[in-house]
């Protein structure tokens, strides 16, 4: 399981690194650019957890709705 999560982290990181320089997302008051997002993802465990949680929630959502259950 842990190795799967590490794999997921690598995929997210490579996705973030492939973003164009103008990548930017807004979360509340915060505005994150590509560099800041990558830096946070690498350094902050809390942030990493948050993103992984979002990825997993999206995957679950797509899976369930794909089955027509939602």
């Amino acid at each position: 399981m842990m190795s799967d999560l590490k794999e997921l982290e690598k995929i997210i990181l490579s996705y973030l690194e492939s973003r164009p320089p103008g990548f930017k997302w807004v979360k509340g008051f915060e505005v994150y650019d590509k560099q800041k997002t990558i830096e946070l993802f690498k350094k902050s465990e809390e942030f990493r957890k948050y993103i992984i949680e979002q990825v997993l929630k999206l995957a679950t959502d797509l899976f369930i709705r794909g089955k027509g259950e939602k």
Partner: protein
Amino acid sequence: MSQALLIRPRFDEATSYSWAWAGELAEEIKGRFNLTDLSDGVSRKQVEEAIKSKDPYLIVFYDHGIEGAWIGNAEGEHIIDLTNVQLLTNRIAYSMACIPEGYHIYTNDGIKDISEVKEGDYVLSHNGTFDKVIKTFKRQHNGEIIVITPKVIKFPIKLTPEHPVLACRFKMKGKKPHYQRVKSENWQLEWIEAKNLKKGDYVVFPLPNFEDDKFAKSFLEAFTEPDKIFEFMELAGFYVAEGDSIGKEGIRFSFGSHEVGRIKRVKELIRVLFNKEPSVVNQGSSITVRLGDYVLSRLFRTWFGCKAKLKKMPMWIITMPKIYLIPFLKGLFAGDGSIYVHHFQSKSYHVITYATSSEVLAHQLLFLFSRFGIVPTVNIEKQRKWGNRSKYTFAFRGSNMIKLAKLLEVKISEPKELHNKAFIFNNFIWMEIGDIKTEQFNGFVYNIEVEGSNSYVCEGITVHNCLSAKGLGVEAYRKGCKVFVGYADNFTFNVQDEKMFGDCANYGLRLWLKGESDWAKIKQSWIEFWNKMIDSASDPWTKMFLRSDRDALRVITKGVDEPTETKCFFRSLALKLFGTSLGWKITRKAGLSTILLILGLASVLTLPYIGIPLILISYLLITYEYLNQLK
């Protein structure tokens, strides 16, 4: 035609997108309602007056919010919070608000709200260094808080009574002035609980101690033309004082037509730095120097902000070697500074002043000046001509003025008094407490634990007005708000696909404006629309946060997202007994009077001396409550 009220964002970088989304909605609302559009600069009072005078059926709020409040444009006050939530009674409230707010902490990433400080951040400690935060705390506090305002830097600090403050007690002996005695008698600092401090005691601010700062270092390494760094810093100073970013049209500097020397200097700096000729627009009493460069515009906006009240400095400027800060200060003071002669008790002396409306910039400047050992006097006052915004005025007197004048290379006469109300001793700025008072408070307070030094520098410990946007929605529903639309978590979006997010945020109201009145159906269609957007988005990041926003959406009304959870035992009992729609509406007084009435009736025959007063009290309580409701 019914009335509607639109409260627009305060326009910072995060809300610059939702400004446009709110604008789209405004056009559609106008077709069905008489719309009052309250834009940037609106205060709580204005909103309250608009609601009372216009009596709008629909209130649309597009701005930042917190759990228990909609934060508006005016600093330090909420547009709607739990104290005036009854204004939403019998109305439809449609909001795009989320997020926390509060007081300021000096971190290695700039000045931050204490509620935004996270474990792993670095905050300024009493050692003058940035130390790691190892834990953050948030708790409910119902009781007294202590408000301390130093004489010189008049940022009030709010603390719980038992919170330790690094301070020194004033000693009542000897004839020498305090500032001399502190030094000659080597007064020592100690941790004193806020409740034990009194007027005249000293609180301190540590002098920053940056030996090898990575922020400034990385900027200086990245700067491709090191011989032009001084010119760049001077232009940055001018921008913070007089500049503005105008999107694709570049950056502009606005001056009075008499400021010929400054206009000439800015033009020179632009030519030297960017090898471009700026355009000059003469508008009679004002002159604008403009440079059309989109990249520069975005860059300056990110680093220094736009609009006067949102101006800021990036951390690499604050921590830069002092030699580079001198041209920055020259530019800054050329724009917003002034020197005047002050007459007092038949004496006259020079005073250098600087004024800004940006709270963040004011804190940052305090930090920056302290690096030079300069302690200004900071006054905060509301300015009517600035739309009731706070004005932060820095005044430099005595030895502080001499130090600053040397940096700025301006000539001033030698002041007769060299001492200041605040002074530097043992690597701290010592400030006398000018005012200390106790206030009642019920809400959340925050605290952080710092590694090593166990201390941090803060304008104030955050005091939120309690509960949750979850809380505001629940409270609004309790007070009879017909429909409360909001988010139970941060609304987040990918800038690349911001239109998708805007369409999703606006969809519910659009449907209602088209004539669908059943909010259960609206929410259902809304979620379906959100799902379509998630499926059609090509970017996974967009998909991810569309999903997150979809799940954060709440439509609090009868039959939809009705609040069911409460920490209060009696409320949960009422919810179980009477269901959600009635259970939330029973007030504490009504509940108590019912219990007293039952007890009174049960005991009236056997113990009439107890029974009759109980019935009377319950009667009085219910009458009071009824009259209150009627009012």
